[in-house]
């Protein structure tokens, strides 16, 4: 039977690495955008307090909102990470399936 488990495992690992590397920008770009947007909001928030356009309690309340916004951002990154993991895992499974099918074809 033509089924080398070590070779199949090597190919599966390689597929996972390749998929994660190729989709890494999908995580990096939004993460950078979130940071940039946060910087802009913090600058504006500080200006508003310094210039007495908002009160201290409202400033504190907006800082609380920032925690919720950060949570939403992490959820968005989590979806992308899971989607990449799903794609990588299924690529590895495909390799395994094809190797097993090929071994069966040779054996029959």
């Amino acid at each position, binding site marked *: 039977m033509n089924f080398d488990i070590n070779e199949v495992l090597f190919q599966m690992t390689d597929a996972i690495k390749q998929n994660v590397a190729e989709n890494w920008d999908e995580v990096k770009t939004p993460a950078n955008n*979130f940071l940039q947007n946060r910087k802009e*909001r913090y600058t504006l928030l500080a200006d508003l307090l310094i210039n007495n356009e908002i009160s201290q309690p409202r400033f504190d309340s907006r800082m609380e909102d920032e925690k*919720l*916004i950060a949570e939403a951002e992490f959820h968005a990154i989590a979806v992308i990470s899971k989607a990449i993991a799903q794609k990588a895992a299924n690529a590895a499974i495909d390799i395994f399936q094809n190797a097993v*099918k090929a071994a069966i074809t040779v054996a029959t």
Partner: protein
Amino acid sequence: MKTVLLNRSLALFFLGLFFGISGCKITLVPSYDAQLKEQIESTSKEIDRFYLNMMDMTSNAEGGRAYDQFREGYINIEVELLSLLNKNKVRPLNTHSTRICEITLQIWRKYKQEHKEDDAIPDGLIKLNMLAMNDLMYAMLIAEKGKAIADNPPN
């Protein structure tokens, strides 16, 4: 001892064979929904238009930014956000997008309530609200578009 090892190897092989030919796929996120993505984009535009109109076409002088002037706009956008929340809620494996929608709706209602209580809103606060809502809508959009990665055929 040899028999046990042989049995184990066979069991492992048949297990692999089962998973190998049964079409087993891992699913961690729901499928990408193009219609939902469009609704996120249109709601995001509506929010931008709402705040930009508020800032450019009105002023706090003589009650120009009284809550009543914007009540309908607040309600229209809240309806869209609720619709997005409900559409996300009914999809399986969609807790992340659902939570993003819950947070967005919570913050939108908070800003509406603040405007209602103050019955006025300065330019700086409009800008800040708009930036916060922009980021939340961007998070929602990124989460939906991210699902398309899983739908693409593996490399």
